[in-house]
């Protein structure tokens, strides 16, 4: 074992941080508020992978790291580790959350209908260079819909498409299950995952997984390395109430609403349909669609190695994977020097043998 000492390290580290700040502009409360208000999908992504719903802190983490998302997620996870667990909310039922967007690619006529919601999916992908050139006014968000005569949507639950499939006999009914105690669910933050993982741990891991990692593995499945070719049964974005129990009266109340997204994918298998599912904090459609595909893929008896449950869950953990990656930047002089010694010895031996 050998160590490397650095001389003048403390001063250099302080100067390095000062240079980082100088090159990345002023960090202040105004910037944080602007990020929170105007870059909600970026904030959502940090909260999703940081597994902590705290928009103000996620915006601060983005501002503080100059937008380096892995660093921002690490900051949020680090903050989370300083906080005590104080309560368990009631489980979110997707049917009762305030749904803003719900579409199905598998069925056109679904109860509750197809609601595009807030999206740029069907808009032209053109850069508004006219805004930069001063030829156009900036866009001001309007409070009123552009179709003012639209009636208010009924404030009634929109059932998941799976429920409709079950009612129509296209899917087997779920076996009756006792209500889960929110305090007793398997939890990857408290217990190491053992494979095959309990479904609750699998879905929790996907919920906090790296978007890019989930997409890469999910895309590999979509391109043909997988065993399925599913269709999106449902994608849903909405607000879910955080329902807590009042510790004195026992009354259930909402402490506020959080942004949540979920996706179901459906695939035919023989004479039955099978489903994949994923959900996450914040609005992130790519992650939940790719995650739902991986959920389905991981159930296959002999999945491609990249879709094996252990492979997927271990390699899409954003803090562990990015942390392991960047640890290679740290001094490895002694180990690498040892490698060079071995290389030189091997060359000397080869030279001696050839003489």
């Amino acid at each position, binding site marked *: 074992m050998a160590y490397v000492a650095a001389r003048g390290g403390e001063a250099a580290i302080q100067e390095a941080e000062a240079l980082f700040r100088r090159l990345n502009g002023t960090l202040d409360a105004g910037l944080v508020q602007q990020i929170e208000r105007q870059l909600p999908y970026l904030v959502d992504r940090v909260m999703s992978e940081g597994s902590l719903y*705290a928009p103000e802190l996620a915006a601060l983490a983005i501002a503080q790291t100059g937008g380096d998302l892995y660093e921002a997620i690490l900051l949020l996870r680090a903050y989370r580790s300083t906080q005590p667990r104080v309560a368990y909310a009631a489980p979110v039922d997707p049917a009762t959350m305030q749904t803003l967007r719900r579409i199905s690619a598998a069925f056109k006529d679904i109860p509750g209908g197809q*609601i595009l919601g807030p999206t740029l999916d069907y808009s032209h992908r053109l850069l508004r260079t006219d805004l930069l050139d001063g030829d156009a006014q900036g866009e001001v968000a309007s409070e009123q819909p552009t179709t003012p005569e639209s009636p208010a949507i009924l404030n009634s639950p929109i059932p998941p498409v799976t429920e409709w499939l079950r009612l129509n006999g296209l899917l087997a009914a779920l076996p009756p299950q006792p209500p889960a105690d929110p305090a007793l*669910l398997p939890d990857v933050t408290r217990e190491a995952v053992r494979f095959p993982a309990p479904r*609750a741990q699998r*879905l929790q891991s996907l*919920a906090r997984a790296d978007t890019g990692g989930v997409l890469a593995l999910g895309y590999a499945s979509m391109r043909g390395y997988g065993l399925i070719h599913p269709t999106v049964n449902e994608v849903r974005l909405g607000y879910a109430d955080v329902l807590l129990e009042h510790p004195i009266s026992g009354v259930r109340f909402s402490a*506020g609403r959080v942004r949540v997204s979920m996706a179901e994918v459906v695939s035919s298998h023989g004479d039955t349909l099978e489903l994949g599912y994923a959900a996450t904090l914040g609005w992130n459609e790519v992650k939940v669609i790719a995650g739902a595909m991986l959920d389905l893929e991981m159930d296959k008896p002999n999945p491609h190695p990249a879709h094996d449950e252990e492979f997927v869950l271990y390699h899409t953990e954003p803090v562990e994977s990015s942390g392991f990656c960047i640890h290679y930047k740290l001094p490895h002089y002694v180990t690498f020097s040892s490698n060079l010694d071995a290389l030189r010895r091997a060359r000397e031996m080869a030279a001696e043998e050839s003489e």
Partner: protein
Amino acid sequence: MAYPDQSFYLSILSRSPATVVKDFVEHLLPTLEPVEVLHNSTGLVMLPMQDTAKGATFYVGEVLVASARVRLAGAEGYAACLGRDLTQALALALLDAACTAGCCRAEIAAFVQAQAAALEAEDLVLRQQIEATRVELETF
């Protein structure tokens, strides 16, 4: 004016603008004192979610909340709200305790109704905006 029920007023007030709630409680405070703060801190709430495919329940993530527990006029109050605003949580808990103790009955009921109306108006606009994005799909 009758008090709205506890679930209703806590759910409404936790979503109401923090500054409005804090200003209202600041105005009521001389009437509510003396107040004992039993607990006021931030913490994490585990948020479970139902898996619609296979019926599992799993943690979709954690939520940062500020919570407070107070005592006034012989009654205890509790509240929690999203984020880390301890003063907001304290203000909400004071209102909860005041409701339990029967203090400032008319003023609090009127405040809750006003906040509920404001949120309902906001939600109505949102629901109209959502409805405007509904599509009917046809196959040919």
